């Protein structure tokens, strides 16, 4: 299997997998495709796509998976490659860290001290034993600890701090892997929604992606829905639903949920996500007055209902109910919003004798459309909307794994940026009646800060050496 360079194909593949070059390519590649994902609308309706793109562009984007990019096979592949690269890099680093750890206890000789990035040499005329404590104190002041070791002809004072900062790398990468594991666990859950009218209950939700029915294993009942508005602005202040959990018909738990405060039961989250009202369910109160009569009678109805006017054979059919009545240029009736800003209802009258006729009646404009000559005059006295609450239903068994991963990653990043392994040695050796001292130090990151602190220490050591005792 050996090729020209003498490496096996596996060694070459491994070499590519562990390279940071690949990491950087993948990071930039992921960013690039994510940009596409923000420019091309994701999971929009076919109608919407046809509005933006030409048919050929649309079919290209669809076939290449750009319309549901984050679930496309190649995006998964990219994420997979990223994960493999991350694991390979992490494993590859272990031997190096072990070597560093095992080397930690050996004392460097003079030559290796002098080759360190930070190194100062001094010559002291005298070195009485009382100075020992001063040296140790200086090192302690620098790194918080210090020890003295004696080798054959010389004395070493040494100190170190932050050796655990080597684990920063592992923690950061482990954190990312835990997050990825959490997102995979999340695929075992589901995201769905349900709509409940006040008073209604249901034990199923509809899964967003597949439109399949998901059985919850218990029932949720909506007791009440309420929307409040700010006094000064016409903006909703709060949506609140009172939900009750029922197990086998028994009430278990009742909670008022609102946006930012969901109901949590058996690992499932119920979020307030939307609301609305059904025009068809609204309870309407109408006033009916026969022509020439002073007497008006009240009738409680819902849309689609049919009633006979008392004492006659005349039939009235309640037609469409429109909460916010408006007409387009062609005379088609539509509702401007879901809010009851201009409620209107259509009445179809079929008298026992004479022509049937249709008329719109308005709650806010009682006099409109009431043509003279019609047999009955209607008044739209009152209506009571029936709200439904829109609930987002989520089950994600991976959420806590993701949070733990995030915490581990942040801890690792903090250590990586703000902690470093600082080591310092002071080697003093007697030579021809003089003492030669070498002060040297190494650091695994942030060398500029270290060298600033190092020069302060070396001034301190110089002063101690010069002091006469």
């Amino acid at each position: 299997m050996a090729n020209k360079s003498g490496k096996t194909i596996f060694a070459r593949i491994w070499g590519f997998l562990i390279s940071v070059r690949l990491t950087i390519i993948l990071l930039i590649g992921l960013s690039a495709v994510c940009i596409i994902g923000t420019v091309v609308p994701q999971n929009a309706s076919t109608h919407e796509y046809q509005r933006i793109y030409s048919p050929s562009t649309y079919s290209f984007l669809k076939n290449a998976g750009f319309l549901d990019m984050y679930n496309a096979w190649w995006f998964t592949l990219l994420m997979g490659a990223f994960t493999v690269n991350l694991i390979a890099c992490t494993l590859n680093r272990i031997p190096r860290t072990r070597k560093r750890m095992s080397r930690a206890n050996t004392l460097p000789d003079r030559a290796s001290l002098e080759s360190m990035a930070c190194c100062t040499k001094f010559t002291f005329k005298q070195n009485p034993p009382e100075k020992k404590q001063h040296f140790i104190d200086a090192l302690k002041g620098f790194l918080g600890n210090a020890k003295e070791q004696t080798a054959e002809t010389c004395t070493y004072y040494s100190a170190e701090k932050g050796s655990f900062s080597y684990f920063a790398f592992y923690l950061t990468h482990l954190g990312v892997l835990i997050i990825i594991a959490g997102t995979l666990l999340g695929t075992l859950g589901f995201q769905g929604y349900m709509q409940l009218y006040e008073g209604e209950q249901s034990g199923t939700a509809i899964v967003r992606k597949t439109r399949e029915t998901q059985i919850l294993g218990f029932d949720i009942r909506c007791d009440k829905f309420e929307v409040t508005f700010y006094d000064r602005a016409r903006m909703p202040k709060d949506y609140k639903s009172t939900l009750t959990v029922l197990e086998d018909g028994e009430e278990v738990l009742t909670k008022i949920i609102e946006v930012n405060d969901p109901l949590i039961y058996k690992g499932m989250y119920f979020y307030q996500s939307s609301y609305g009202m059904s025009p068809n369910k609204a309870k309407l109160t109408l006033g009916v007055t026969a022509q020439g009569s002073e007497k008006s009678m009240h009738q409680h109805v819902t849309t689609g209902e049919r009633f006979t006017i008392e004492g006659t054979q005349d039939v009235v059919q309640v037609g469409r109910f429109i909460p916010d009545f408006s007409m387009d240029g062609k005379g088609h009736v539509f509702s401007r919003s879901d809010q009851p800003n201009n409620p209107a209802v259509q009445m179809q009258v079929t008298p026992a004798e004479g022509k049937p006729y249709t008329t719109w009646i308005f709650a806010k404009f009682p006099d409109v459309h009431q043509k003279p000559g019609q047999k009955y005059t209607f008044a739209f006295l009152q209506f009571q909307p029936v709200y439904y609450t829109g609930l987002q239903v989520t089950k994600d068994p991976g959420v806590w794994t993701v949070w733990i991963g995030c915490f581990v990653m942040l801890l690792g990043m903090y250590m990586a940026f703000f902690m470093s392994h600082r080591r310092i040695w002071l080697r003093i050796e007697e030579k021809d009646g003089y003492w030669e001292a070498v002060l040297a130090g190494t650091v695994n990151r942030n060398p500029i800060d270290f060298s600033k602190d190092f020069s302060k220490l070396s001034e301190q050591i110089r002063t101690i050496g010069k002091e006469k005792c």
Partner: protein
Amino acid sequence: MLSSTFLGITTFTYLLCMTLYFSYLFFRNKTFGKILTILVFFGLAVHTIGLGLRWYESYEIGYGHIPLSNLYEALVSLSWTTVIFYLVIEFRYKIRQLGSLVFPFISIAMAYASLSPNVNSEIQPLIPALQSNWLTYHVLTCFLGYSAFAVSFGASIVYLAKSKKEATKKVQEPADGFMPSLDTLDDIIYKSIAIGFLLLGIGIITGAIWANYAWGSYWSWDPKETWSLITWLIYAAFIHARITRGWRGKRAAVISIIGFCCVLFTFLGVNYLLSGLHSYA
């Protein structure tokens, strides 16, 4: 409103700071520099009072929320965090020259917030989705991150200008104690990015926690969310290139500028050009 008077004075002070920082580059006078720093502190104090008053006024009206809820408040708060981060760097590295690059951004942001007809400076009520304590944690950490990136961007521009100057002269400029050395600038670029990277990371995570609580999913690939991730990934690439492949100096400065363009797009571009769940921010 009293708060808008204070914030108006702030804008004026920062514009003054900007021009004085430019003049400082020519005068190179230490006393002048010290007075300038005092002026920045004055601006920051007025700024802080202005923001505090606005917060208080929102309670008076009956809305009661931290001033982080619309573009006006975002720009004013982002300027506030940037001034703070800038002052930290000024003290830590004892250099004032970066001010001439950071203050134009701050002044433009403040002036745009108060003067542009596109930006509504009224105190508006919070829509239900924003009524959460996570608003503070999420937006503040993101903004602190953006500020750190802004400072690294300023340092990168100085770095490139200075290294070009040195390249044409073919000699290293004598350290006259005025302009920071290339090594110092490089250190500022890296450290600001490291801090910004960590803060933006926390910002994205607090956002995810909040989203999980409000929208029922910690990640929805919403354009703003995705762009913050893109920015984060670009800086992640930068940090990896630096640590393992020794990318410093010019290359680092260029990537830091690209990264800051992503930050600007995440903060402003997404809202103007793309639509999504963050449409209110």
